[in-house]
Structures are given as structure tokens and as C-alpha cells.
């Protein structure tokens, strides 16, 4: 299989994630878009692992690390979103401007 197939697929998923992060107002939707981007990175890691025929399977190992970090990230992210919702009755990221100067 040409290496470009998975690379273009990953690039498309990543771009969709970028669009989602910028276009969505709801914090949960932004988290979902970030998951898409992390998955695109994983597709690249696995594709290059297969392409290079790495003896240590580094690409697959690092994909597993990325999955673990993504799980931690979404857990913390949702905890923060719940906290914001409890305090401000909204999860729209443009209305949460406490840190804006």
C-alpha cells in the first residue's frame, strides 16, 4: 500500500480536528475535536512504524503512550468543564473569559 494513503487520511482527520477546535463554542465539542487530532497523530505513528519495519516497534509503543495521555487529558478536561458549568452555568468557551486581560 502506498505510504501516502494513511498519511493523507491522517492529514484529513487532523485538519478536521483543527477546524473543530476553532469553529466550535461548546467545550465538550472542542475536546472531541482534540481527540480527532490525537488519532491522526497515531495513524502517522503506526504508518511509519510499518513503513520503516522498526525492530523495536517504536511507533506502536508511542501510539499506546499517546492513547494513555489522551485518556488522562479527556478526564482532566471534562473535570474542568464540569467545574466551569457548575460555577457559571455555561460551557461556551467564549463566555469563560476570567483569564482575559
Amino acid at each position: 500500500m502506498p505510504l501516502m494513503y494513511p498519511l493523507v487520511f491522517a492529514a484529513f482527520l487532523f485538519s478536521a480536528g483543527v477546524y473543530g477546535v476553532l469553529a466550535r463554542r461548546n467545550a465538550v465539542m472542542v475536546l472531541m475535536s482534540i481527540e480527532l487530532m490525537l488519532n491522526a497523530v497515531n495513524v502517522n505513528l503506526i504508518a511509519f512504524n510499518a513503513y520503516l519495519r522498526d525492530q523495536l516497534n517504536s511507533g506502536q509503543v508511542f501510539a499506546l503512550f499517546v492513547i494513555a495521555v489522551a485518556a488522562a487529558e479527556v478526564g482532566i478536561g471534562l473535570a474542568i468543564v464540569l467545574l466551569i458549568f457548575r460555577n457559571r452555568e455555561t460551557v461556551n468557551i467564549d463566555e469563560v473569559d476570567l483569564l482575559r486581560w
Partner: protein
Amino acid sequence: MTGQEVAFLILAVIGGLAGLLVVTSRNVVHAALYLVVALASVAGVYLLLAAPFVAFVQVIIYVGAIVVLILFGIMLTRAPVGRRVLDNTLRARVGAFVIGAGVFVMLTVFLGGAFGSERIANQTATATAALGDSLFRNYVLPFEAVSVLLLAALIGAIVLARRD
């Protein structure tokens, strides 16, 4: 065109469409369910790229855990339904589309220039034993670091979400 390539193209089209729907759907719950489709097709892509263990971890962690967590987040924040409340203004969305399309074109052109003629050779699937060997011999230190990170995230999530 081999059967592997046909299967990949089918999976890629399904996953790409689902990914687009995740970021454009008006309904938050529908977006989460499209995310399931996108993540499952990515798992299929892992299978085609000779990484079955990562594919099953993807199904268990992403489809099983993360999407459920996101659905809980949607329910607990009473996410409203409808474009007006979900998306930014039209101007911001056009800007986001330009940036997203620009990233896609740039990545495709540059990667095509660098790897356009390369092919992934057919190979047997990575044995889970080999992957575990690599993980617990050569990458045991990052593995331990990830375990500490997960513990910190666990405690942090409890501290943040606790009602006191």
C-alpha cells in the same frame, strides 16, 4: 489495486466523512456517535497497517472509555442543540475552514513531496509478545512516567470535580 488498498480506501472514506460530521453536526450527541465511527475506522486502519494490538487498545480505550466519558460530559453539562449555540459566528467559521483547509493542503503537498513514491511493504502483523518486549525492555522508563501521569490525572480529576 490490492484488496488491502480497497479496504483501506473504504475505511478512510468512512472515517473521513465521520470526522467531518463530528466537527459539523448540529447535535452534540450525534457528534459523539460520529466520533465512535471515526475512531472505529481508525482502529480498522491500524489492523490494515499490521498493528492489531494497538487496534484493540483503540477500541477498548477510545470507543469504550473516552466516548462514554464524553457522553457523560454532554449529559452533565446539559449541552444545548443547534448551530447557533454550538458554533462560532460565520466569520470565525470561515476563518477556521480556511485554516483547516490550509493545513490539509500544506500537509498533503509536503508529505507528497517527501514520501510520494514510497510504499509500505506487506508484512505479518506485529506479535503482541514482541510489542510487550519492546514496551517493557526498551521503553520501560516512559511507561513508568505515563503511569505517574495517569495517577496525577486521576487525583487531579477527583480534586477538580469533587463537590465540597
